[in-house]
């Protein structure tokens, strides 16, 4: 392993090492930077001359988020096939390029750059975690590309280059609080995973609760992927809240739900309202969760002709046992919205699309959705569902029609972003 005693004179080797370093430095200097640049907005390389238009689907098909994001990939695929069968977008057939974000924000950033600059796609659909979206945002802005993000999130963001087809907080969290106020809830316990969405959601919840006169009797967080909720649930037992607001992410929900029932809690005493348990998660809890609530903008049980068509098409394509859920519907909707955006602008150019975006609509499975041209979110109807014994949701409450998106909660006087 070791070089045997080099009896070379030292200064010669030092000279050589110096030479290598000098070489490195001079080669490095050759690539000197440009300090005065404004940052070039890259020239779009999208090719619209042919019969097809390239779109990128960027979802995690490996890593911890794969299970959730695969469902989004499926509904995107379905939407693309439907649109192609129906004549494509502006007569061009969709050719989609699939990439794996590997549940890693840095990979998302890498892949979206590849899609935009290498594959020259006209728009990218995907992302799930806020971390992945935050990682893609500077890339999509720098390349003046388009990203359609299909998941409800914590708001406080608006980019010219992103369309948000999931709910922002005033379309999910705030309506859920209004529902709780209507129910006469006086005490509320907050349980969440220890990361951005739950922390931000709970900040909003706490301020709105004060406004509504609801007392927050406890707030507990557990690291992502941590399953043992016993000690935290014990605090819920002690606090005896009227309701539990659940912002827990992913598999950690299982441990929470189990501990909740084990310690004698039930929907009769302290029901749970969740913002991350949907049709797919409900049966995987290992407990009968009948009677618990969830706040979304879409349930499989929504009765509309568009939804009936969507469910039938999806189950025909991917299997009759597959449920449909809010993010899947939002992803499905996002591709159709893109079609409508392009057709409204009569162009695939990003600036043209943004120009005419305001007011573009789509008759989605969840109901009519409308794009807000200012913040690139969409107006959506908020729904509260109660889980029935079939692990489907009975809609028990809904907002009065679609709610205008307000990602920065500017229309809510009680909101103070800088409060602790």
């Amino acid at each position, binding site marked *: 392993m070791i070089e045997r005693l080099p009896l070379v004179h030292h200064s010669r080797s030092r000279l050589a090492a110096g030479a290598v370093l000098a070489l490195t430095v001079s080669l490095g200097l050759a690539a000197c930077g440009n300090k005065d*640049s404004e940052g070039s907005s890259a020239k779009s390389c999208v090719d619209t001359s042919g019969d097809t238009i390239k779109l990128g689907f960027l979802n995690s098909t490996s890593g911890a988020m794969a299970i959730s994001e695969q469902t989004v990939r499926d509904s995107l695929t379905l939407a693309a096939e439907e649109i192609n069968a129906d004549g494509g977008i502006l007569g061009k057939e969709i050719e989609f390029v699939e990439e794996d974000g590997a549940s890693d*924000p840095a990979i998302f950033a890498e892949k979206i750059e590849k899609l935009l600059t290498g594959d020259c796609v006209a728009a990218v659909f995907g992302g799930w975690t806020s971390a992945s979206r935050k990682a893609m945002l500077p890339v999509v802005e720098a390349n003046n590309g388009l990203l359609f993000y299909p998941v409800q999130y914590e708001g406080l963001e608006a980019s010219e280059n992103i369309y948000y087809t999931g709910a922002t907080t005033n379309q999910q969290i705030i309506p859920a609080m209004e529902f709780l106020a209507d129910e006469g809830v006086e005490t509320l316990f907050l349980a969440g995973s220890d990361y951005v969405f739950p922390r931000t959601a709970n900040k909003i919840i706490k301020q709105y609760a004060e406004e509504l006169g609801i007392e927050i009797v406890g707030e507990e967080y557990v690291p992502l992927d941590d399953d043992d909720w016993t000690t935290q649930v014990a605090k819920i037992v002690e606090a005896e809240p009227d309701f539990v607001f659940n912002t827990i992410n992913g598999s950690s929900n299982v441990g929470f739900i189990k501990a909740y029932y084990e310690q004698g809690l039930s929907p009769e005493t302290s029901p749970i309202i969740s913002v991350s348990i949907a049709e797919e998660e409900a049966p995987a809890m290992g407990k009968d969760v009948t009677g618990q609530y969830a706040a979304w903008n879409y349930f499989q049980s929504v009765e509309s002709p568009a939804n009936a068509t969507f469910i039938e098409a999806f189950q025909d394509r991917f299997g009759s046992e597959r449920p449909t859920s809010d993010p899947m519907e939002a992803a499905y909707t996002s591709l159709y919205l893109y079609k409508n955006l392009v057709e409204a602008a009569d162009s695939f150019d990003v600036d043209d699309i943004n120009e005419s975006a305001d007011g573009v609509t789509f008759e989605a499975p969840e109901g009519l959705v409308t794009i807000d041209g200012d913040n690139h979110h969409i107006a959506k109807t908020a729904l509260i569902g109660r889980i029935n014994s079939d692990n489907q949701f009975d809609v028990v409450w809904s907002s009065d029609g679609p709610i205008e998106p307000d990602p920065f909660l500017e229309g809510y006087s009680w909101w103070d972003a800088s409060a602790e």
Partner: protein
Amino acid sequence: MKSAVRTFGPLVAIAVLAVLLLVVAPSVLSPFRLNNLGKYCCWAIAAVGIGLAWGRGGMLVMGQGVFFGIGGYAMAMHLKLEAAGPEGIPDFMLLYGDGTMPGWWEPFRSGAFTLFAIVALPAVAAAILGWAIFKRKVKGAYFAILTQAMAVVFATLLIATIQETGGFNGLNQFTFFFGYNLYDPVNKRMVYSITAGLLIACLVVVWQLYRSRFGELLVATRDAEERVRFLGHDPANVKLAAFVIAAVMASIGGAMFAPIAGIISPSDVDATASIFLIAGVALGGRALLLGPALGALAVGYGRSTLSEQFPDQWTYFLGALFIVVILMFPAGLISAAGRAAGLLRPRRRVRPTAARPAGATS
């Protein structure tokens, strides 16, 4: 002249790598691929340090992501503050926090302090941890486990401190790199060149360390720690020095990763990321001079391309890499290739051209 080959052969190899990374790669790769290669270079810098600590020092460092993260976050904090402008505070603190900035962010406004911190913070952290561990003669598997636990704890800490570190989202949306706009392709290329240059510099540093008396002492400590004690050296100090240097290198790699990837988040520094860093070192050859760097470049490239080709099988590849390489080629593929070549030709030396960085071949 044989000895001259031994002394200068590695330097020539490093020079060849320097030309490949600094001249050939920028002229043949697209800006996107070049940026990716820059990312692999960041991992390679950390890998060079792992080669020193593990390959030569016998310390299996399974938590280098922590030091990678210290450098990455230090740099990212500076870039965040640069993006926010003078007196400005990072956007996420306004969004998720109470709009005030923790006091310990303030010094990172200064570029000079940031550069100092990138070297000093990991050095101090590694010195404290290493001192606590080595002085008490905790070693081998115990050491490996403790470092891995440290990576888990570090990631948890980052995720839980949203207002201070951006939590799970990490830090991103940088615009300037010490005054250079990061969205200008020319400047991106400059950042790449700096990174590749740092990799070469780290290689020259370990080359000197390996041929120095310290290098011999380190190997001696790896192979017979107690015997070294009876040479009058405290093996703890020898190991500590290697551990600290490895930590600083990881930190430098992380510091360059932030502007190149445009993001640093807990998933870049957690236990899985740390394991990923080791994979390259094992593949290339832990005790070789160039093995860790070339291995890391290859694994980085493999991660990008294999995950494009076989998105679902990438984890199998990584797992199989560990099993096959460690089981069958514990000295790494380059050594194995060298041995195979040695069967044909009696003399054996590292031939870097035989294992060009995979990233440069596309």
